[in-house]
């Protein structure tokens, strides 16, 4: 059952080695002449004012939360879609109710302006 995943594991190893190998090749071949100005964070030519560990817009949190909700919804839709032939009309109605509830939530967040970026 799970044997099919061994090639994927090997693929992960090969891909990781390939990426790391490229980085190492770059480190070996490229010059390395550090300099205080060169190693500064880029801020349009000025010395950076402060650390970049700063506050950012709340809307990114909102988008992330909405993503979690909808991704969960997709996680519920996947098995339902695969088994659609077997569960027939009853399964269809159950999912229609589930989707309906989520669509109400979606309309609410839309009307609240959670999807606005001005």
């Amino acid at each position, binding site marked *: 059952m799970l044997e*099919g*995943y*061994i*090639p*994927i594991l*090997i*693929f*992960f190893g*090969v*891909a*990781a080695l*390939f*990426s*790391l190998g*490229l*980085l190492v*090749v*770059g*480190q070996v*071949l*490229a010059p*390395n*002449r*550090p300099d205080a100005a*060169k*190693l*500064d*964070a*880029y*801020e349009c030519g000025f010395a*950076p004012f402060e*650390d*970049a*560990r*700063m506050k*950012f*817009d709340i809307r*990114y949190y909102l*988008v*992330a939360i*909405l*993503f979690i909700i*909808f*991704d969960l919804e*997709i996680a519920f*839709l*996947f098995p339902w*879609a*695969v088994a*659609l032939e077997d569960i027939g*009309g009853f399964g*269809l109605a159950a999912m*229609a109710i589930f*989707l309906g509830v989520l*669509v109400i939530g*979606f309309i609410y967040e*839309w009307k609240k302006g959670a*999807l606005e*970026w*001005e």
Partner: protein
Amino acid sequence: MSPSWQYFVVHVLLTLVIVMPIVVAVAYLTLAERKVIGYMHVRIGPNRVGPRGLFQPFADVFKLMFKEVITPTVANKFIFYLAPVLILVAALVAWAVIPFDDGWVLADINAGLLYVLAIGAAGVYGVILAGWASNSKYALLGGMRSAAHKVAYELAMGFALVGVLMVSGSLNLSEIVRGQEGSILHWYWLPLLPMFVVYFVSGVAETNRAPFDISEGESEIVAGFHVEYSGIAFALFMLAEYASMILISALTAVLFLGGWLSPFQGTFLEPVFAFVPGIVWFLLKISFLLFVFIWFRATFPRFRYDQIMRLGWKVFIPVTILWIAVEGAFFYFEVGPWF
């Protein structure tokens, strides 16, 4: 002990048989992009390095290899180098489940589509980590913006995949292709036309390609999340971007354009083209979709960030949810050409 050892070696070689052509294809995709955009602008594009510019990609790669990799003093070093590796690995490993021809698939797992969705989501970690680890304000903001738009379009892609699943009834990519047997009209692009459009356009957005290249909008926030990267570390990001372009094209071909199937199946032309192996059709479909990627870039002006988010959340997600409902109704009343 020894059989498993052989199994391991064989699969490493098979993996290389997939990875190496992808890397070469990425190199030549950069050349093709510059050439095609050049011709669309009524100029020639690169034509100096080698015959017709054919060595240009190698010149670019070697130039980047010999460029200094700058590690900003304020950066978190480990994560700074982890991020490009993560992105590139995520762009490559999804190929393990792509069927190139009937039976030509490295890992014929039953949860193929779920695996593809999970790997697609993993790439977002790399973007956020790259933006955060640089410890630069531009990179942080660019990473945040990029991640927000990627997850928005990932939802639209996920819903489009549910539409495919409802018709095919299997998560296995080879099964999905076999479900499209018939002529070009039996491929899922026609009955699932809204899903097809949403999936492909979301794929363009997901790979940060024009007109959705806001995350690296060079005239606006310099280079977004990878502003601090140089040399080979920067090349890793570019490699990943082009590799995921090819991946999105391959997935669109598998899910909506019949994968390795001939477009003439069931018509009088079928025997005429019977000698063409399936992988050729698959590669032709990928090439066509990659051409569309480049065509988009040469045609459309860039979206504003709020327009991107509006398109993702307020157009694509409602359209896909609506089409899932439509498919459900078609299924229940047994109408439509594909049940």
